[in-house]
């Protein structure tokens, strides 16, 4: 049980500081003038909308990859929440009354509001359009989240016009994430990895980029709770716990991929000897002498320490203190 004295001590330090900081920042923010982006939004509202809505747009924008939006939930008119139940294309792309008008030779056509990394509009403004409706889906933890602070636009990950947005399909999603997460892409190619490469798992099975406030945007409140989603047998709680297993799976495992079986960061016996130093076999400096052709050793080969201490995640046997049983 957690020491109550400790909790009280921690609370004394944390709570007043937290409250003061919270109130101070809120008051400061509320007394400041509105941001430039906010002012800009007001100016745009005076622009003209087109005369015939989507019918105007579709005269020119008739390619399949644009028109496939009608196969998506956004294109459903009977749902009052969708863009096409409101101002059609201009719900998201803004007032486009000037855009289709004839332009003088050499003159630039008045632009419409566009999305994506190559769009000339600030990411914040692009995302405001999406978040204006997707409050429940993305609003919870997006502000201040790592993707938001890295300047990621919604359209960097979501292909809104596609009939099936790749980032929502578990076998296609990783390639979207790998656009930025290149180190993780390589990790999932390693000899032992969770089945992301083969399409059985998606990044979003463990990470929730919109809704999580947890470390690494994990889908569950902690590392272990995320792992227990699929590995519930490791939860216990066991009578005899192995402290690192109960505390944090990543103390021994590399979840994205490893050179070693079971996604271990390194193999036993050295992995175990990072923490075990008891006199006798736990602290012996095992060498190649224990390999076949010399003096093959159960302390070195096959599962090494786990050949005997097989209940490494914990044991519920009354005789399981050494994790044999």
């Amino acid at each position, binding site marked *: 049980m*957690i020491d109550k004295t400790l909790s009280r001590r921690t609370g004394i330090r944390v709570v007043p500081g937290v409250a003061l900081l919270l109130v101070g920042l809120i008051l400061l923010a509320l007394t400041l003038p509105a941001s430039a982006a906010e002012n800009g939004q007001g100016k745009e509202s005076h622009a003209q909308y087109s005369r015939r809505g989507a019918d105007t747009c579709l005269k020119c924008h008739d390619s399949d990859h644009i028109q496939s939006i009608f196969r998506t939930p956004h294109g459903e008119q009977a749902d009052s929440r969708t863009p096409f139940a409101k101002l059609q294309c201009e719900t998201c792309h803004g007032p486009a009354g000037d855009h289709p008008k004839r332009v003088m030779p050499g003159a630039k056509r008045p632009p419409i509001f566009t999305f994506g990394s190559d769009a000339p509009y600030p990411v914040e403004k692009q995302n405001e359009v999406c978040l204006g409706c997707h409050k*429940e889906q993305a609003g919870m933890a997006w502000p201040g989240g790592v993707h938001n602070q890295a300047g990621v636009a919604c359209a960097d990950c979501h292909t809104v016009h596609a009939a099936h947005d790749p980032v929502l399909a578990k076998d296609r999603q990783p390639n979207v994430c790998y656009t930025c997460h290149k180190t993780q892409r390589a990790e999932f190619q390693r000899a032992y990895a969770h089945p992301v490469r083969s399409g059985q798992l998606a990044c979003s099975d463990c990470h929730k980029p919109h809704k999580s406030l947890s470390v690494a945007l994990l889908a569950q409140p902690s590392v272990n709770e995320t792992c227990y989603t699929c590995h519930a047998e490791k939860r*216990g709680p066991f009578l005899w716990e192995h402290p690192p297993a109960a505390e944090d799976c990543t103390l021994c495992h590399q979840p994205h991929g490893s050179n070693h079986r079971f996604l271990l960061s390194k193999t036993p016996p*050295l992995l175990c000897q*990072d923490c075990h130093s008891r006199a006798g076999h736990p602290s012996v400096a095992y060498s*190649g002498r224990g390999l076949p052709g010399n003096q093959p050793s159960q302390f070195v080969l096959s599962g090494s320490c786990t050949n005997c201490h097989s209940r490494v995640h914990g044991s519920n046997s*009354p005789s399981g203190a050494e994790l044999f*049983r």
Partner: protein
Amino acid sequence: MKTHLTARVLLALTMLAWGAYAMAADQGEDVDTSHWQCRFCPFPSGAVGHVEAGPGYVSDDSAKYGAYSDLDEKGAFLSLDADATYYGEGARRWDMTVRDLGLENRYIDITGGTQGAYQLSLTYDEIVHHVADDTQTPFSGSGDGDLTLPTGWQRAPTTQGMTSLDGSLHEKDIDSKRQRVGIGVKIPDQGHWTYSVKAQHERRDGTKMTGGAFLNTSTLMAEPVDYDTDRLDANIGYQAEDWQLKLAYLGSFFSNRHDTLTWDNPFTAVTAGADRGQMTLPPDNQFHQISLSGNYRFGRRASFAADVAVGRMLQNQDFEASTVNSQIAVPALPRGSANAEVNTLNANARLVASLAPRLSMTWKFRADRRDNNTPSDAYPQVVADSFLGVTRTNEPLSYSRYTSGLRGDYRFDAGRRVAAGVDYTYYHRNFGSDPLTREYTGWGEVRMPIADAAEVTLKYSHGERTGSNQSPESPAVSQQNPRMTWYDIADRTRNRVRAAVNVSPSARVTLSAIAERTKDDYGDTEIGRTQVFQDSYTLELSFVPAEDSSLYAYITRARYDTKQANSQTYSNPDWMGITRDTYWTGAVGGQVKGIAERVDLSADLSYTHSLGATSVDTGAPEPEFPDYRSGRFTAQVRGDYAWSKSLGVGLTTIYEHYNSKDWQRDNVSPDTIPHLLTMGDASPDYNVVVTVLTMNYKF
């Protein structure tokens, strides 16, 4: 503390909620849409989709190749994927996704309803995991909870003396399969309330390899995997213009159809009655968690988000007997079951405020607590079903961890910005000597253009962790070397640097390079992990020569090094262990669509190579460990020909070559190790060609 914090947060949330309500403004605009008929809008109706099906062939057996794809055996298979959507009147819509229907790895998802009113979902998902197909065992009953040796088995002190071993070995693959059925309903945010419930049942069946010891001998065998897990997620949310709250319940119910694994000892028993052994298998458990999350937006200037999750893990399965050795008289146990109970608390809070048009500040707080209320008692120990050892007392692990951080972001313009922050972590474990660590981390990040079409991002962080530089376990109990420090509590200096460059000389070409390095120094550690170093370098090129074609290439090199010290003499460090894993991963590929308006082509080549070096230095000449090695080369080519708008044919060929070396498994037959009877598995090597010819029908 908890009461005060909760009360203050609730008070703040209540005030903020009223403030938000008062500030809410109608931003709607009057637009004349009377002529907006959407006559040219191609709204779909009825069923739309495609089915792709056809025969495939796998050229060779390989559990490693088919580890998760189920293409582990030579022979023909049916490839069948489909996507279909039914569009009905009044926003009715049903989506169906089918993958790998012809394999024992299939995935079917049907989701639909009336958009905006309700959504139902039904999912069936299979995930196989083929671990080894070269494993052998003399035991009968593999996959069950009782393993027996054949009649007439000759026990011996070592594997070489087991005269009946060769004649008794038979193949036993190590694999398992998950089958999940999920059903859900969601009533989305029509109005303010959102409701969703999802229930899932998972059946997992198969085997895993495990070891069972009798003092100085051990046996590897097939442990049954016979699990059922039910999960229930229920959510209710309320959403206003500027704030939202969500209340959620998560229940997880795990049950194992086998309580124990019992096996015959193939070795000569060194103590009376140690002819059979019994180990416990993962016990049934439950987890219940209630969470509340919410956020509040102060216009565009500030946002506050928080969540708190309170959970309880329960495990109270009846104890098995301390031993199956009838020759050992075991004192009475202090209780009949562990009555294990762990309460968890996870809370997060984050406040983001725009203090100026270009300046924002973010404050975050995180609390993680694990209160293990499992009774602590003294249990007599029967060591490996062999003899009565000393009594041991279970020591439940509890911990509390609090992290707080503050960061500031300043944007000079769209391309240039700087950010900096500090984090503080307080981590206390109630285990052994109750180690306490504190960690301070400071970091800074710069993003700026370095040319018209190039951008660079640099980030550096430095962390110092201080705390208990001793093993949390009492040496008197655990007999750990008192100089040992576990690396998760040891003093540590962590330095991280990351640099990324993106160059886009044209809209069609992007070149990026990323370098990451992390170094952990455990400078005060005498025995234990003393250093970890990892880095990763990536170079990537993407090129879009035309609208319907693309090319890419990348290469990544990563390294993971560790150093540790230990003592064979239970005193000062007298040996050092070093591991170094080096990875090379590269790929090149591209696709061209619409050749002669009928042909799509794609090709991908990828290569991954890893090298794991292990070195143990005692100062004396000792035989070295070989390297771990693995290399995989994959070439995949796909061509699609469209006969018509609705009918096409596709041909996919995949060639994959894999080779590996693992000194822990290679050249280890069941009787290679005198005191360990193994299952004889070796590191995998294969050459596999998979060819799939499919018809593609669009409707």
